[in-house]
């Protein structure tokens, strides 16, 4: 952890709102990405991170032993889980990804890429919550096993196992939706 961040956490614990806002600002996009991947709806994802940030602010004194980022993301993950439990209707994919990375080369490729991403995102939403969280954290957001386990608040082996199961389930989904070639499916069943 950076020394600067440590100072900001200490100040935030003492009630310095500006320090807290600086901390949140640093991880805002990561929190939003996680929320969006888990929920699949932009507005709901925004509401969730807003709730999570407020909760983090109210409970910052409880932060111990974890990095601020992992602690914040675990709050976001729990809020997403609560939202999913509450909602009655099925999810819909309703968000436009605004990639921070470089833009896509041509409009045709962009359309194809967008379709592909939507299919992957839909596949993600078919996964059970814990597997979806593992796949999102590790394969999309690029966290390490250790970080993933910390955010998910579980053991390393458990996180690894959830990731493995999630990948397999997603793979089957993508084969059935013709995103991956059928030959894999046939080989698998042989």
């Amino acid at each position, binding site marked *: 952890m950076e020394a600067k961040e440590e100072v900001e956490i200490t100040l935030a614990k003492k*009630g310095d*709102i500006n320090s*807290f*806002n600086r901390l*949140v*600002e640093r991880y*805002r*996009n*990561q*929190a*939003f*990405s996680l929320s*969006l*991947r888990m929920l699949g709806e932009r507005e709901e994802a*925004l509401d969730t*991170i*807003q709730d999570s*940030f*407020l*909760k983090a*602010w*109210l409970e910052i004194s409880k932060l111990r032993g974890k990095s601020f980022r992992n602690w914040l993301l675990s709050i976001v993950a729990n809020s997403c889980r609560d939202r999913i439990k509450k909602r009655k209707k099925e999810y819909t994919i309703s968000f436009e*990804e*605004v*990639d*921070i*990375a470089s833009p896509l080369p041509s409009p045709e490729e962009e359309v194809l*890429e967008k379709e*592909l*991403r939507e299919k*992957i*995102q839909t596949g993600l939403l078919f996964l059970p919550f814990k597997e979806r969280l593992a*796949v999102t954290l590790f*394969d*999309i*957001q*690029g966290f390490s*096993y250790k970080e993933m386990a910390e955010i998910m608040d579980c053991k390393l082996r458990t996180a*690894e196992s959830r*990731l*493995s199961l999630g*990948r*397999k389930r*997603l*793979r089957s989904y*993508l*084969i059935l939706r013709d*995103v*991956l070639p059928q*030959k*894999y499916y046939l*080989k*698998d069943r*042989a």
Partner: protein
Amino acid sequence: MIDYFRKRECRKVRGLLSGYLNGSLSQSDMERVGCHLSRCEECLAEFRSLKETVELLHRLPSEIASPPFFISQADRRIPAPKRWMRKLSIPASIILVLALGTWAILLSFGGESTDDSFRLEKSPPVGMLTEGSILHPENKETSSPPKVLPTALTEERTESTSAIKELTTKEKSSLHKSGLEESNSGLPFTWEIRLGNCALGFGYVASREGLVAQEPPQRVVDALIACLKQICPCFPIQALPEEGTLVHDQSGHLPIIKERR
């Protein structure tokens, strides 16, 4: 026999493929999986499909821009609502509305007024309700002593009766507008409390035919009764009538009535 051992090895290796892909296995397991993949086409296909899945996931952006959020100084003072508070929020709001309504009606019947023409000579027992008074609002005969109502007040009561009738025609829309029908709390919102000719609360207004139907949850009834007793301790409040019975007022009790859907 050989086939059995081969399949068992395949199962074990397939369980390790995700870790192999990440390079997180021990040296011996890495070698074991690598060796098996070089010999087993099925497991190799599974490995490739898994690898392609992960590659597809890598195409998704790791970060998506979100609008900025700032916690304001005021948020420090807002305590997070406790779960029990959230659960009670809907019944509590109903009770509050009913309490305010009751209070308003009490004032209109028996409250002091600066204008003498609006003052009752003898306050009628508020909450008195006869079967006739609901089924036939124009029938004012009750077992209580005759009341002298100033003209203005009588007109006011008639207006409130017509307002009830009017509401009956709009019951569906008002329910939907209130958004309460879709509540998770299990409250049917088809019940109401009546005081004289005035209806309080949400939901349907009693029609001329049916008056009693489903029961509201007991906790709501208890809370309402407690609330009303507090507001006006002089009222004997009877228990909720049996389902399917008509509401009779023989003792000046305050009935809680509901309409059959």
